[in-house]
């Protein structure tokens, strides 16, 4: 399929979900992600799937929990205030080792905040937004094509690691229209979902999906198991993009929408003869620590840029070589605070 389409990022998410075999969607309206439920409410019934507009984001995440427990591919999407409501369910899904895809087209906060693009949900997403000390995989697309490709990847990673996976973007990537090549679903070897509840047909053993472990030592063992999985993810699943980083004297660290703007600023810098590059984490959890180590073996200056007051920069500082310097530039999200390339170019000049 080499067809090219001109679609919105949010639509690309919905299309990818269908291509990935997801037939169950549960959600609640919130700007700027409503294109996703709108698209799926139209398409899923045609595929004998189920679309439910839930009573709340709490309802939606728990419907996802229930559907996922039966072994089907299912998803929900929302934006920051709704994602806060979903944290309870995400913690239970992480604890119950249930796959599921959660899309956050994040918006500015705290509170009702605004509907502008925002990266202020980084901490909430990667540090385990609910209680109990868990992680979920977090993927950060920066283009419509990536919205599509990473959503499909999200379903695979969810099944492979039995974990919730979040696609974290914002209205820049979600509302923007770009060319999209709707690639077919990648062929991945997926584990059998032997753990799923199905009813005890043919006398199969009792299946229990739960996160309560009261026996002596049981919960500790369960948590060691979960954290063992996180270590495997860190080893195998880190993804990042390097852009003009080979000879760079200054490397910008940025993800999602801000990385796009940074690229334009980098080209401006290159035109001015400055060797500047980009390291863009695509997986925010697991964080591409090794990539930062490798880059900073040679390049000693990292300029971390975010649409918030500094969140990912914590992980960047923990990842770089000891003698590397990490500078930060960021603005809290809100109407008018999305940086322009010229502004970032100024920051490049300041630290180069």
């Amino acid at each position, binding site marked *: 399929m080499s067809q090219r389409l001109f679609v919105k990022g949010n639509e690309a998410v919905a299309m990818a979900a269908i291509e990935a075999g*997801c037939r169950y969607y549960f959600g609640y309206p919130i700007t700027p992600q409503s294109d996703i439920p709108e698209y799926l409410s139209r398409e899923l019934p045609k595929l004998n799937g189920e679309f439910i507009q*839930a009573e709340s984001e709490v309802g939606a995440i728990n419907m996802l929990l*229930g559907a996922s427990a039966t072994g089907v591919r299912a998803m929900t999407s929302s934006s920051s205030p709704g994602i806060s409501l979903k944290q309870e369910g995400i913690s239970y899904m992480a604890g119950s080792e249930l796959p599921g895809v959660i899309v956050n087209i994040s918006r500015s906060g705290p509170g009702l905040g605004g509907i502008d693009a925002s990266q202020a949900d980084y901490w909430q997403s990667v540090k385990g937004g609910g209680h109990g000390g868990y992680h979920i995989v977090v993927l950060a697309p920066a283009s419509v094509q990536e919205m599509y490709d990473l959503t499909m990847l999200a379903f695979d990673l969810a099944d492979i690691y039995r974990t919730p996976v979040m696609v974290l973007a914002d209205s820049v990537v979600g509302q923007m229209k770009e060319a999209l090549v709707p690639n077919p679903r990648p062929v991945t070897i997926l584990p059998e979902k032997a753990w799923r509840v*199905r009813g*005890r047909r043919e006398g199969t053993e009792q299946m229990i*999906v*739960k996160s309560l472990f009261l026996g002596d030592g049981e919960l500790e063992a369960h948590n060691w198991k979960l954290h063992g999985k996180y270590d495997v993810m860190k080893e195998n699943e880190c993804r990042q993009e390097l852009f003009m980083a080979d000879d760079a004297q200054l490397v910008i660290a940025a993800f999602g929408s801000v990385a796009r703007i940074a690229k334009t600023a980098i080209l401006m810098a290159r035109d001015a003869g400055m060797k500047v590059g980009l390291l863009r984490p695509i997986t925010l959890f697991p964080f591409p620590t090794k990539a930062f180590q490798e880059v900073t073996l040679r390049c000693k200056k990292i300029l971390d840029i975010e649409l918030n007051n500094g969140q990912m920069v914590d992980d960047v500082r923990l990842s770089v070589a000891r003698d590397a310097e990490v500078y930060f530039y960021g603005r809290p999200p809100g109407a008018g605070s999305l940086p322009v390339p010229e502004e970032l170019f100024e920051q490049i000049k300041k630290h180069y």
Partner: protein
Amino acid sequence: MPQVFKRPVSLKDVPTHFCPGCQHGTIHRLVAEAMDEFGVRERTIGVASVGCSVFLYGYFDVDVVEAPHGRAPAVATGVKRARPDSFVFTYQGDGDLAAIGTAEIIHAANRGEDITVIFVNNTTYGMTGGQMAPTTMVGQKTSTSPYGRDRAKDGSPIRMAELLAQLGGVAFSARVAVNTPKNLMDAKKQIMNAFRYQVEGKGFSFIEALSTCPTAWGVTPIQANERIGGELIEYFPLGVYKDTAQWKPRIAPPAPVEQPGARAFPEFMNEI
């Protein structure tokens, strides 16, 4: 002599953790008997809630998904929509269903999800040590209403069976008790009715079972049982509040909800 009363096979042969005289055990047994009689054990998926009945999987010999506190009807919605051929029930306490989970129960009921909800009303939060619940009686002393529930401050006990009967998606709603042999026989009959609705794919069915919590009430099991027959049944009358097979509403009911049973699903189309 032949045995005339036996443990239902859907109930595991293990001792329960329930306190002496707690009727969670009795209600578990009636539900398991209904499961046996309809022969649905092999396709049943239970949804456990948070409360003294959290160990549903320890007692019922069926597959179980554990839901966060109050969310069982939403979890059951996901299970049933994904596996319309299964028999799905939730088992929830009054704190779980009538306080933290009100949004989930009302909307699952209103959508007419083809599930059965067993709601155990013991007028308190048993598991957390007997705090005030939305169902606590006016004047009832609990660990968080030490002067008795005050109607002016805390409102009145909520009657869920009546409330849910109002909703278009609800096919069956009844309140039962297991305090006397007669009420218990009737409870069994209504649980069977509730099951029948789901087995026939006819919509959301709801059973509110009054239950004792001698521990939190601070009385003996026999006194607790007497309280059910007195004060509780007086305020929470037993009976069938909606039975769509018989129901003749004065106002035109909302259009019947199309049930998932009628939908055609390819067998596990997206399962890998």
